[in-house]
């Protein structure tokens, strides 16, 4: 079967779309935020590959055409950013300082903990972009020489955790301002966080969407510097 699958360029492509559709269906039926479609799709495909003993390379013969769209789609993030320019202009200082503080906190925690756990530098590099939206994170990790699948794993996990804990954290720490709540969701948990932010309110949703892109952009500037100082020996 491996031989046949290596000759067809459709297998990886088709299985990805079919399983993704299935996971969207499950998500819509259950409405549980833990059942993130990307997470569910990944788990099912990994299980299929392991059960049928198909290696990743064979899967990727067809699947790589899907990855191809990642860059043009990220370019499209310019559109939501443009649409939110008014909100950005109005609160520019509060927004930028909150996001910047989050990015610095993220880099600090990751550098400290990777050193405490004595992990290798390549893993540290791969984790630096974990709070930003996956397309930017993948591009950044590739540029910095990290392992992109570790980054994707960390990005998804951040999203799931951020989306789940946001309401509790806001309550415990008395973060009541709508703008601040939205920014906190988007900066820590990108698109997943935005789903939670939208449940909290319209302003939170818009702010979270804005934070995703701004966090991504600023991280592209800060992560290489942090990487250069701490993870390149």
């Amino acid at each position, binding site marked *: 079967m491996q031989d046949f699958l290596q000759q067809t360029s459709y297998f990886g492509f088709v299985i990805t779309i079919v399983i993704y559709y299935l996971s969207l269906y499950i998500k819509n039926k259950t409405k549980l935020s833990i059942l993130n479609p990307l997470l569910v799709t990944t788990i099912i495909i990994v299980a299929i590959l392991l059960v049928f003993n198909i290696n990743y390379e064979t899967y990727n013969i067809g699947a790589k055409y*899907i990855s191809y769209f990642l860059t043009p789609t990220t*370019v*499209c993030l310019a559109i939501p950013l443009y649409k939110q320019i008014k909100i950005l202009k109005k609160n520019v200082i509060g927004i930028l300082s909150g996001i910047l503080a989050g990015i610095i*906190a993220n880099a600090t925690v990751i550098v400290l903990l990777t050193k405490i756990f004595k992990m290798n530098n390549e893993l540290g590099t791969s984790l630096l972009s974990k709070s930003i939206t996956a397309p930017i994170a993948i591009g950044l990790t590739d540029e910095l020489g990290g392992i992109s699948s570790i980054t994707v794993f960390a990005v998804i996990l951040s999203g799931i955790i951020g989306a789940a804990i946001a309401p509790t954290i806001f309550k415990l720490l008395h973060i009541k301002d709508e703008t601040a709540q939205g920014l906190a969701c988007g900066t820590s948990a990108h698109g997943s966080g935005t789903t939670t932010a939208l449940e909290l309110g319209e302003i939170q949703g818009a702010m979270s969407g804005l934070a995703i892109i701004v966090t991504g952009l600023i991280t592209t500037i800060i992560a290489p510097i942090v990487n250069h100082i701490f993870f390149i020996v």
Partner: protein
Amino acid sequence: MKYVKQLMIILIFSFIGDILNHIIPLPIPVSIYGMVFLFIALLTRIIKLDQVETTAEFLLSIMLIFFVPASVGIIDTFFAYKSSMLPIIIIVIISTIIVMITTGLVSQFIIKLRNKKERGAK
């Protein structure tokens, strides 16, 4: 025709990003160059919103599927870095919580401060 034109614009900006990524020796992803230039083009009205909007919104709405191949790549990485998986999970949990708290508190503080100032000015 409309969609061909929209896709063309998006791909041209991606290509511009690719060119810049090759000439400029900075670790900035192709997509960021493309995105920033498209954003500037929108601001300066070289490109109008309705010239890209429909196709862009479509691509963004199905965006998650484009990460699946990279995400499935965990299958190879997992076995190569098995012993590091637990620390990675711990780091991700702790840092996500800290980032959320930091951004939330800092932006709330500054927004409150500015609101007070504005009220004081009146």
